[in-house]
């Protein structure tokens, strides 16, 4: 059966992007990893080895947990897939979801870990790395990723079984990550990579096996939210938001648990990033990252929330109503701004507690970059963005348009000089102009769903 799950995923992406596109993303990774690894000695001069390894392994773990959660809590609602049609197949639900886990583990290993390994191997002539080091590092990466996948898989029956237990799980995860960052608790794959200790290797496999077993055992026979009768809340939302489409979107967000689901794809990596930046500042002995640059970086993560919004609903019934695809895209954008304001604004205020005079600028930069990235994503990808990563045209355009202005904004806030202020003002003007153009073009481009 696994073969069919793999074929289904391949055809899904190949139907949206072109077949050859599927190799483009791994090529990007090979290229960037090879370049980065060639400068590894320079990187390790300013970044202590242990912190570098911890950052890499923990980020990979969180990434694995994020994509797995996105798959199990989000994409399983897509119609007509093997998982949603399991009830008509001679297949147990437990097995079906286990195949889904294996499918993603194989896909993401092929798309991320394998290209990383190839990139590292290609860098051998230009760096001080040897094959054994690369294989050990790759093994640590794979284990970190698999702990994340398995935890995402395990969190899925918890989410469907009892929401309070799920929130408890997320809280424990958050506390654990903080304790790992402050070296109070170990993260076994990072320990293995640093110490080359076989016991750490053994301890790295334990959570994978444990989460897998628990996930398999706890997966229910039938996946269905407990159906309860619900009062008409849409009227209440309509009174608040006035706009019926936005009211419906916010009801979907609340009932679909999007704010909670986005915690681990937005809030967790963001928290991790801030703590590590603090560590970098301490290592270098200079506060290069200030509240302004952090606000810009915060906005980069916020684009993830848009992808959650695009998978909440099936569009087919919407096509029967007097609605354009662009109406739905624009309402996703409105909901996105409401959500990021709820989640991010308190963080920006916290960042500026010691520098209240910078708060308006932090907010302006945060909303500027969020607006720019979101309008860009929405214009390029439209109402469905799950296959964005596999379309080379989309990746290329997104990379070109997003990385350069973002970097100028971040670097421009490192120093107070006439040059940096001019660079930030010019970049901000460019971003506002492009955002306006993209906003106008969304309406023209996205007519059909």
């Amino acid at each position, binding site marked *: 059966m696994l073969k069919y799950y793999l074929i289904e995923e391949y055809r899904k992406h190949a139907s949206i992007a072109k077949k050859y596109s599927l190799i483009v993303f791994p090529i990007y990774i090979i290229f960037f990893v090879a370049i980065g690894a060639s400068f590894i000695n320079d990187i390790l001069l300013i970044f202590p080895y242990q912190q570098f390894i911890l950052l890499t392994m923990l980020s990979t773990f969180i990434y694995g947990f994020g994509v797995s959660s996105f798959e199990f809590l989000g994409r399983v609602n897509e119609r007509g897939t093997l998982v949603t049609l399991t009830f008509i197949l001679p297949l147990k639900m437990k097995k079906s979801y286990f195949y889904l886990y294996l499918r993603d583990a194989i896909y993401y290993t092929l798309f991320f870990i394998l290209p990383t390994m190839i990139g590292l191997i290609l860098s051998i002539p230009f760096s001080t790395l040897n094959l054994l080091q690369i294989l050990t590092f790759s093994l640590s990466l794979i284990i970190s990723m698999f702990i994340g996948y398995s935890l995402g898989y395990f969190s899925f029956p918890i989410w469907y079984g009892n929401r309070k237990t799920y929130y408890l799980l997320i809280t424990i995860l958050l506390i654990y990550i903080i304790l790992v960052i402050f070296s109070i608790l170990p993260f076994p794959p990072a320990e293995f990579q640093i110490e080359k200790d076989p016991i750490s290797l053994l301890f790295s496999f334990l959570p994978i096996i444990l989460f897998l077993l628990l996930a398999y055992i706890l997966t229910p026979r039938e996946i269905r939210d407990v159906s309860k009768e619900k009062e*008409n809340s849409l009227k209440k939302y309509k009174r608040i938001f006035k706009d019926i489409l936005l009211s419906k979107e916010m009801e979907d967000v609340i009932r679909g648990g999007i704010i909670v689901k986005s915690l681990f794809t937005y809030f967790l990596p963001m928290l991790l990033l801030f703590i590590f930046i603090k560590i970098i500042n301490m290592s270098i002995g200079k506060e290069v990252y200030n509240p302004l640059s952090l606000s810009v970086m915060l906005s980069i993560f916020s684009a993830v929330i848009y992808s959650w919004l695009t998978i909440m609903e099936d569009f087919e019934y919407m096509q029967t109503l007097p609605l354009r695809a662009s109406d739905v895209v624009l309402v996703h954008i409105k909901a996105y701004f409401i959500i990021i304001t709820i989640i991010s604004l308190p963080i920006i205020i916290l960042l500026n507690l010691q520098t209240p005079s910078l708060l308006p600028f932090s907010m302006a930069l945060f909303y500027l970059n969020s607006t720019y990235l979101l309008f860009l994503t929405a214009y390029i990808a439209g109402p469905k963005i799950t296959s964005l990563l596999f379309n080379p045209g989309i990746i290329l355009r997104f990379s070109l348009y997003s990385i350069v202005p973002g970097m100028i904004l971040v670097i421009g806030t490192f120093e107070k000089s006439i040059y940096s202020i001019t660079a930030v003002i010019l970049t901000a003007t460019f971003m506002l102009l492009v955002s306006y153009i993209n906003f106008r073009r969304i309406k023209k481009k996205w007519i059909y769903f």
Partner: protein
Amino acid sequence: MIIVKNLNKWYGSNQVLKDLNLKVDRGEIFGLLGPNGAGKTTLIKILTGQTEGQGYVRVGGIDPLKEPIKVREIAGIVPESESVPNYLTVEEYLYFIAELRNLEEKSVERALKKFSLVEYRKNVCRDLSKGTKQRLMITAAFIHKPKILFLDEPFINLDPLYQKSVREEILKYASEGNTVFMATHIIEMAKKMCTRVGIIKDGRIIAVLEDLKNLEEEFLREFENA
């Protein structure tokens, strides 16, 4: 009410509609019969502005290729698959459509009663049975009293009792001067309800039948001759 001239549609290199011509008058119940993959759903999607096509198309005087939203304002559509919102209740979904179409709130209550959905009003749409989802979609298509109704296999999941009441509702609706365009596999249903039947094969209308007494035989004959 519906005029189609030389309509073509490609999905990549696959041509699904080939120089299709059709005319449906006001007040008609026009049936579209054809096997799977003949182009029935694609034709409905073009007529209701859900996808593009090449050719001349008018629905109630509106060009759905240029004004896709306008045609959906005057039309009611029941799609082929039972697609409903994931998180709204039955009542909320109808309220959502009523607001979107600028209807009075009373229209929700009327629709719930008319299509026997009162007992399901607080249920989340995606948790409904297939048949009840189909009923909800039919209700959603009727709620704004459209001038033209597009139905894609509307009876497929309905129980016989409900089939009968929907059939009666459609006949009453057409008798008030409204138009119905219905794609179906069920020859018996087309015979009972339609004023004319078009037969579609490989993206072309191969015949339009007015005498429906021997529809099954006519359908098979036309199909074999084409």
